[in-house]
């Protein structure tokens, strides 16, 4: 895990934090994107979830942002924290300086302020890449489940842990140039289903989905995705592996 940087409070006094938030409301024709600064007093254990809610409750009820689980598992609250994509809910202010800049994730449609429409993007990608088990066999629900090696199940879960937060897309160089690039989130899903013995699709089928520059061949191996993934998914190795498999498939 990432070692945490702790900012001390030498005099024991709580710090005054300045949060500079990129504000814009597309629903308001008069709105122009601008940075707005809010000052708050830091509290013990304060996360950006706590800080933003405090600002909204006490200073500016119009501020828009998205939180759901506030425990780092649902992927709702990804934003740029000092320019770096991350989950706001589990970012502790004590790991940041006194000036904190928050901006919405790029690439995704802006709803307002820090809120972006990742859901629409992810659903579109799921439909395009058909991210579900393809298997025409009817399951007999009364019968024993099909057996699976314990290690296989764990390996699938390793990739299944993606929370579709969008950090990898925000940190991706290719997406800046290719709007339809499926990104690490899309490629990881293909890797996940490719690994799953219950999915009957072959590499030929997967090649149809990602065997082009909007898919695995579009990746420039900058691996910003890998660096910012809050779940530490093995994106670098998975993309490299998938590219090799798809290249082999392409040469057939």
């Amino acid at each position, binding site marked *: 895990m990432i070692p945490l940087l702790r900012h001390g409070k030498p005099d024991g006094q709580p710090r005054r934090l300045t949060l500079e938030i990129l504000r814009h409301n597309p629903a308001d024709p008069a709105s122009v994107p601008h940075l707005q600064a809010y000052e708050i007093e830091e509290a013990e254990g304060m996360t950006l979830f706590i800080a933003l809610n405090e600002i909204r409750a006490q200073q500016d009820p119009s501020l828009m942002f998205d939180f759901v689980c506030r425990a780092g598992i649902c992927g709702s609250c990804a934003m740029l924290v000092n320019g770096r994509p991350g989950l706001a809910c589990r970012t502790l202010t004590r790991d940041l300086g006194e000036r904190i800049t928050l901006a919405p994730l790029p690439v995704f449609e802006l709803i307002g302020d820090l809120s972006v429409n990742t859901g629409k993007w992810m659903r579109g990608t799921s439909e395009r890449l058909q991210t579900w088990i393809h298997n025409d066999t009817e399951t007999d629900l009364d019968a024993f489940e099909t057996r699976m090696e*314990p290690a296989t199940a764990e390996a699938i879960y390793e990739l*299944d842990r993606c929370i579709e937060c969008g950090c990898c897309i925000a940190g991706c160089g290719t997406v800046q140039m290719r709007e339809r690039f499926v990104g690490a989130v899309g490629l990881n899903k293909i890797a996940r289903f490719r690994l799953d013995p*219950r999915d009957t699709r072959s590499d030929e089928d997967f090649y149809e989905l990602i065997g082009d520059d909007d898919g695995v061949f579009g990746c420039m191996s900058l691996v910003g995705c890998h660096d910012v993934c809050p779940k530490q998914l093995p994106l670098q190795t998975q993309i490299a592996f998938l590219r090799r498999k798809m290249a082999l498939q392409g040469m057939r």
Partner: protein
Amino acid sequence: METIHTDVLVIGGGLAGLRAALAARKRGNSVLILSLVPPKRSHSAAAQGGMQASLGNTAKGAGDNEDVHFEDTVRGSDWGNDQEVARLFVHTAPKAVRELASWGVPWNRVQAGEREAIIDNRRVTLSEPEAAHGLITARDFGGTKKWRTCYVSDGTGHAMLYAISDQTIAEGIPVHERMEAVSLIHDGLRCYGAIVRNLIDGKLVAYIARATCIATGGFGRIYQSTTNAVINEGIGAAIALETGVVPLGNMEAVQFHPTAIFPAGILVTEGCRGDGGLLRDVDGHRFMPDYEPEKKELASRDVVSRRMEAHIRSGKGARNRFGEHLWLDITQLGALHIDHKLREVKEICHYFLGIDPARQWIPVRPAQHYSMGGIRTNAHGAAYGLSGLFACGEAACWDLHGFNRLGGNSVAETVVSGMIVGDAIADFCSSSGGDMHLSTALLRECADKVRAEFSAITDNHGPENPAALLGAMQAIMTDKVGIVRHGEQLAEAVRELTELEARSRQIGLRNHRPGANPELTLAWRLQKMLKLAICVAHGARQRTESRGAHFRTDFPRRNDAEWLKRTLAYWTDPAQLVPSLHYEALDVRHMELPPGWRGYGARDAIEHPETAHRMAQIETIRAQLATADRHAVQDALMPFRHLLPRHLCGDNARPGEST
């Protein structure tokens, strides 16, 4: 106003709603799902430790079956649940797990051979049978006789939610995200869909449906200290209550989870204790065996939470700058186990507490976790009071859980009830009851009513601040309607909440941002949440006994003679200050398992006069059928298969059982 038509409208994109939508879609209906957030962000994803289903594949699960799961569930509920529903559930849970396996959930699997485990603070060697290798494994959870909780590390809900959500995408079921149902369209007899507010642009849309299913989850956010996601505000239950004809059942039955990290309230799974974790006090002493010699840390959640609070009150709490807490110790499980089976716990401890749970103890204290109460439905998920309205999952009081839910039974309930209720919805749509004649006048009246609700807030320039009122409500609920309750405090809570409700009508918005103004959204929801809070507090005040999670120091005994009944709260007149409470008796004469001692917790219940007679009857039936198989005996005691869709009626395959 834009109007959208569909056969089935599902409100809520968590596991229950998605699974019900799939069931209705597979029967040929057009289905549309509304969700506050992208479905994969639903609170279902937070279910960590696992899902109960009596597969009986493992060494410690051997001998498990529906009968054992049924008894555990009824005892867990403190005899407050509907036993027929419990039977439907335990029978269908293995099918649900297997279906999810076919949809891609990477359930952890049995590894044949010897393995080490920690049981009751002792290292033991378990030998998993060769024949079970590669089948779905299970871990121990609280209040269960067998290891029955199927899991995917500690991201079970996440894996289930993604698999089911992907199935709905495969089926092409549209999900309208960031949409909030703000009122049901109804005429007092039949539901015709909902008026819905777009949380992006603030516009209202009418969704007209032959069948409407509410699957909006629980209402934990009426409490200050809760493990619930911020979207769990109970609005689905509130709009059902506001019809005036649909009751909410057992709203006073609120679960507190023993191990929420302190003070943030984020859950760490019961799997920690299931896998061998211990609770310790300020002295490092393992105190649960002192209170609960039988089940220790793995008694039911209501009992463990209560014992923890009592232990803190006895002066044995540890203390940090936020207050008192206890310790959850999983260090003995070792780093390897934690890295594979408790990875979310490890992450949460790392990010929110800055500790490594393989080396350090976790500060925990009970926090609100689950709403056993909700929209009262029958066994098919049909809401009382309005034809065409259904509910499932945590939003419903189906009533699987009674007054305490077992860990692992709610995430299981989501999919099982989704299967059963979704099929019932399809039955409804193909029956004459599913026909519909909606007058445009009614639609206009319903829409006008909603517009009036919102403009009453925006046009009011009163002194009140919705965020402050929300905080006040949450503090009252945690302080006075929490784990330990008393009549006087409950009366105070009801009074204070009704005052807050009046003040919530005097809100002055501080901003008028175009689009979906978050302050307006909060102010509108607050009024609904206050009604739910009053239902909880008033129901708790009136219930003069202790049962499951509802514990009153002034009435500490479970009183089956007077209180073996379910509370039904109606809000008939919008002007009434507290709901009208009605009670629905649970019939001992038809119970498969009449009330008794749970096997943990207090054993001083006041007996129901019919219990002895029913016990004798059951003994006679069992004696008569001594040579019959267990299914036949069960059927003689309390038949349930007539309540199931035909395709779910079959017996479940299980090691050591022939089918």
